């Protein structure tokens, strides 16, 4: 259904618009924009067959910077608008750009339903754990205790864990990356390949209102000791010295971080299984300051829009075309 152009025919710049990018200098959004443009060139979907739908917030300005179709809509509603776009025009590759406030505060309800319905959309959540465009209030992903203009004595809101929300909603594709990761564009390619709703959380640095909160995880020096890129079928090893890993705790049955050595070998580690939802749940929020990146969960499923089209075709095949005249004359009629 979705047309593609031979590899290498399209370049990253084919997906850029003529508008100046107006994010703050140093904003993580630039890297994500670049990652998406690169992924699209790689996928080979021509720009006119791509539609990007966003809500409101810093990240939602994204469509203006893409040389594709774009709809910068209203706060929180991008998943609903994108669903309509996809239902009307299934040939389009539809991407949803949202933030932690847009997607999980005002738009939380739509996020739940677009994921459980499994509409074939690629949803990128820019998570900077703060409200940027309204100047720094705490968001639904802000850690407890965080001091912001609206929480001068520290936030007391329990934060949501987006990847767990997505898993709970029944999403068939849940992945995570961070803004400056070189692996990011490959992650978007994977999201695009998935039939159905793909949810990609990207940890994104806000240089103005929440600078450095992901520093430990994303920094080149320290990152490899605080994050792991999981790959399907491979043992979960990480650390600069590849000296740490994740195993199933013999006590709790849940995943835990362990140091290799002292009788623990690579064979004791868990191999990542993308189809195991319990393991994905654990990976979504590991204890001990470890953040898991990569495709946490992936199972095939029937996309909602495909099922809608199928049902339309089935009913048409079964009942044939009905004219307006026939419709109005169905049931009891009488002549005067």
């Amino acid at each position, binding site marked *: 259904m979705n047309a593609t152009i031979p590899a290498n025919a399209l370049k990253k710049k084919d997906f850029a618009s003529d508008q100046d990018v107006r994010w703050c200098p140093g904003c993580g959004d630039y890297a994500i924009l670049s990652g998406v443009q690169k992924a699209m060139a790689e996928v080979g979907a021509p720009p006119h067959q791509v539609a990007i739908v966003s809500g409101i917030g810093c990240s939602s300005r994204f469509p203006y910077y893409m040389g594709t179709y774009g709809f*910068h809509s209203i706060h929180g509603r991008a998943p609903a608008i994108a669903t309509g776009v996809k*239902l009307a025009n299934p040939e389009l590759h539809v991407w949803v750009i949202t933030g932690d406030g847009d997607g999980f505060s005002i738009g939380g*309800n739509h996020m739940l339903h677009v994921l459980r319905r499994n509409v074939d959309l690629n949803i990128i959540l820019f998570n900077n754990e703060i409200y940027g465009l309204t100047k720094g209030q705490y968001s639904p992903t802000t850690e407890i205790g965080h001091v912001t203009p609206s929480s001068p004595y520290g936030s007391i809101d329990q934060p949501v864990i987006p990847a767990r929300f997505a898993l709970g909603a029944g999403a068939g594709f849940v992945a995570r990356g961070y803004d400056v990761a070189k692996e990011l564009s490959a992650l978007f390619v994977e999201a695009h390949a998935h039939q159905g709703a793909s949810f990609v959380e990207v940890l994104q640095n806000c240089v103005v209102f929440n600078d450095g909160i992901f520093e430990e995880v994303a920094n080149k020096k320290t990152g490899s000791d605080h994050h792991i890129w999981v790959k399907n079928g491979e043992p979960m090893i990480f650390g600069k010295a590849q000296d740490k890993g994740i195993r199933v705790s013999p006590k709790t049955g849940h995943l835990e971080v362990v140091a290799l050595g002292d009788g623990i070998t690579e064979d004791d580690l868990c191999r990542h299984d993308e189809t195991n939802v319990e393991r994905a749940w654990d990976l979504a929020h590991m204890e001990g300051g470890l953040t898991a990146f990569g495709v946490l969960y992936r199972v095939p499923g029937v996309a909602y829009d495909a099922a809608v089209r199928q049902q339309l075709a089935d009913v048409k095949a079964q009942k044939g075309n009905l004219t307006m005249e026939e419709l109005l004359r169905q049931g009891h009629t009488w002549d005067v």
Partner: protein
Amino acid sequence: MTATDSNEASGEGQTVTREELDSVVIRFAGDSGDGMQLTGSQFGATSALMGNDLSTFPDYPAEIRAPAGTTYGVSGFQVHFASKDVRTPGDAPDVLVAMNPAALMVNLPQLKPHGVLVINTDAFTKANLKKAGYEANPLEDHSLDAYRLLAVDITKRTLEAVRPHGLSSKNGARCKNVWTLGLLYWLFDRDPAPTTQWLETKFKKKPDIAEANKAALRAGHIFAENTALPNGIHPYTVPKAELPKGTYRSIDGNTAAAYGVVMGAKLAGLPVMYGSYPITPASALLHHLAKLKHMDVTTFQAEDEIAAVCSAIGASFGGALGVTGTSGPGLALKTEAVGLAIGAELPLVIVDVQRGGPSTGLPTKTEQSDLLFAIYGRNGDAPLPVLAAATPGDCFHMAVEAVRIATQFMTPVILLTDGYLANGAEPWKIPDLDAYEPFPVTFQTETENFQPFAHDPETGIRRWVKAGTPGLMYRTGGLEKADGPGNISYDPDNHQAMTTMRADKIARVADSIPEAVIEQGEATGELVYVGWGSTHGAITQAVGQLLGEGHSVSHIHLRYMNPLPKGLERLLRGFKQVVVPEMNNGMLDKVLRAEFLIDAKGVNKVKGLPFQIHELVEDAYQRLGVNHEHSNVIAMGAE
């Protein structure tokens, strides 16, 4: 009403003398679970098939099954059928069918003097009487002596009739509405065959239930035929009405609006994407459209009202006709998104089936109180066209109009109907579809010098670009756009120009709609009633009566609420008094005052019920200074 003649009809082997009536109003009333809606609608459908003109009015509580026997659980269905032109479900009923004491308690005050009262005596138990608030049994204390009472042990007789079909007594007793229908069919000379066929279809998979109901229908019919009717009650007949020639069907407003949307989409050459969230009384729009998948209709039951309208907007961006339907509280939720469609200059049709407000208000009761909200209720300067259907059948035509204006002017359009139109049924002459002029949409495809927000200098309308078209990639949204290229613009002059352009574009819709006309009465005079929406029937009949009495009264009925039709001001200025009957606390009168500086007055009713004809007639008498004696309207055949 009154008997006009008598004729003889032959029943099975015996000759029955029937009194001929020109018009009868029957109200069926019972518990929510007594099947009154079904009974009333069957009586109406049969009468339509027999050639009567008619109008029906379902009146039911919001609770699906309110506690049995209570007054607030009473469900009613009024049928007005006649051999003459019928525009309303009738003021007071000639016949009241009360299936229990609560139904009697609620409805008896409306029954005409000497009206016929059919009562199920089996339901008049001590407990039911107490629940309804009766201290004494009205069947025993002579309080019903002023009526023509037909008291029958309906439940017992129904159980006897269905016994051979092996139903439990609970299921058997549920056939009592159909037994009662049989009785009334005989009394009013109705053919039971259509209902028999309907029962066979409805209970195709439950033949025992179908047979039991058919037996009940027959038994009620036979009972009426063989029983000695009480003094003053005769067999009646209501001859066919003289209607314009054509093929007719029965239609309610929700069905007509749904079909009108599909018709409009066909004329525009577009598929329909209907996004909706269930809400009373608009849900049936979704139900009807969901069945039409073979007519290029996609329906999407969204997670909420906002998602519903947003999905429709997304669909329009993608090149389909985005449509959503709702009622007042839902329209409130949709407003921000409607503003987005205005700013993005995308077509969108919103059907608002109005109900009583504010807030949840009266979900199952009718009202016209969303008018100002529809015209003005958005943030910013956000004008859009607002249309209003006048009758159930008119919902079809006005839905076509909504699609035409939305697609031709690249704007959201609100079509107002209401609970009374949505649920009320009338015989509808199937329109000549070939008479509708197609208005095919041509999407922009030329890429040269493409500007997504280039506006036609004459009309202020931009071309519709279907997302997915090669070479026309563009970005849109809720931020103000530069006139032409459509990029984000904070330029002061641009916002001024775009705001003016959006307002002028909507004002120009007036060039494409019919001019205002006087529907009844002279073009100038003492008093004009200016109505809109579902008050059409009551105003028409009231003004008809007043004109017949020689009074200077006219009637203008608006179907286009914003912009108002051309020529309206000139017409209004021809009358000394301009009066707006509305089922709200005064809205159109405010619009007329604001637009024309005319001293419009209101006649306002917010009881969840439509206007009655006599209410408007009496209003006119007062305004015209006519001394009149109260006409003592007594029930049909009572002289």
